[in-house]
């Protein structure tokens, strides 16, 4: 199964609906995208997923929150120039 968001090939089914046969849930181990089999095509199909929301390994590396949740040791007092 291909992740609709980051195209990782290792996405897999992780859950079946408690009421048998209603839907399944899938999950990507890289970007943690989860989706239900019954959702609209733009959510479940890799080729229709909005390009602005697509993720890649390179993009993921850049996604550190700014400002950081925990600043590096001594960052506040270090001169920047």
């Amino acid at each position, binding site marked *: 199964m291909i992740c609709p968001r980051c195209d990782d090939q290792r996405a897999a089914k992780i859950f079946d609906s408690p009421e048998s046969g209603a839907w399944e849930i899938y999950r990507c181990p890289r970007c*943690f995208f*989860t989706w239900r089999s019954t959702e609209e095509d733009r959510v479940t199909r890799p080729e229709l997923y909005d390009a602005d929301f697509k993720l890649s390994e390179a993009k993921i590396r850049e996604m550190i929150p700014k400002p950081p*949740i*925990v600043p590096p040791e001594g960052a506040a007092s270090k001169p920047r120039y």
Partner: protein
Amino acid sequence: MPYGSLREFLEKAEQEGRLLRIAEEVRLEPDVRTISCAAGRMTGGPVLLFEKVLGYPDKKIVMNVHGSWENHALTLDLPKNTPVREQFREIVKRWGRYPVPAKRVTSAPVKEVVLERDFSLFRELPLFRVNPMDGGFFLSKACAIARDPENPSNQNVGIYRIQVKDHDLLGIQLSAQHDLAAYLRSAERLDVPLRAAIAVSNDPIVPFVASSPLKFDDDEYAMMGAIRGAPVEVVSSEIGALDVPAGAEMIIEGEILRHHRAVEGPFAEYPGSYSSSMLQVEIRVDRITRRRDPILFENLYTGEPWGEIDYLQGLNTCATIYNQMKLDFPEIEAVNALYTHGYCTIIASRMRFGGFAKTLACRLLSTPHGITYPKLIIVVDANVDPFNLQQVIWALTTRFRPERDLALIPNAPASTLDPAHLIRGLGTKVIIDATTPVYPDIPMEDNISVDLPADTDFWIGEIQKRMQAKP
């Protein structure tokens, strides 16, 4: 009587004609989001109870609990037709009773079922995607509880967006200014465990206070007691001795993973736009306690305003700012920070002297909430109700002199979620003085104001009463 749980509140909402049961089968996507968006967007939308969810025979979903001024009044145990300004006054009054500490109990319905292993969050809750481009299924109204590792008597209850990433794994979005982020900084520095408990589906006062901008060491439970008018009951978590709301439907317990970040989000936020996907904190879940099925899952729809979130984080924010400013400036009558979480804030006040409106605007910008959120600040006279936009626009059109009364503060701190930014986190503050100029300012030459008839306010109340009494 204050409510002990979401269930007790729903009973009251139904008695008052404010609960709509959706009896037909609904799909988790897109039906729950669509109907919830509609209920929050319309005027006077009811609380929604989805009784039949496709795929989950033993779960129900509750939405739009705070999503109209009528519902909001009921959550405060006020008559459902209480006007917004009166609700504001009542909240300010109850705020003054702080602290009313929590009452500890040893047993609670939320302990009826205790799960220690082989559980799945996908089985326990009827999770759904709130908006189409959200990165997963989110708990958008659950309250996270944790203790400060450096000072364990300091405990925080806050609403954070929480993504269910696996059967026993949660993502939680922390920003540098959040209390929980400060706890994490300590836990990572000291290298000690940081426990968290997530309370799902609560007495509506719990999320009301959890989404209020209280001070770092304020006790949210003691504020809930003040707002409810009676202590809130808490019970100990299974691990880590956290106080959790005894009336909750479910408590999810786990450990925040230190020195570890992973992909979280995006998620649609209150400005009506998605916030970006980030490397964020994760919680490994190791206990779930809950009531017996059928369990109620309460969640929040967020999207283009107006919706439930605008009501939920509305008057609590107004009251917090009002109380902080009132200490320095007793002339202030009311603060309306309802629009996009205070991006537009309206202050009503008596004027001490000419130019005083700008002083008040600057004080707003130095309150904790005011540092970032307000970008458009309007100051009106004390006789203008800032919650009545017709009156505010009247003040703007008849008092505001742009060449003297408009001030811009460029390059000032701004909300990082404002989609109109050029540099994230920076923006221009716009101050508009729409008050009647007073000495030593130049008076309005032709201002011969018409007085309202003396008993107008009395008659507004009287007419409303008589209309409500009609069969």
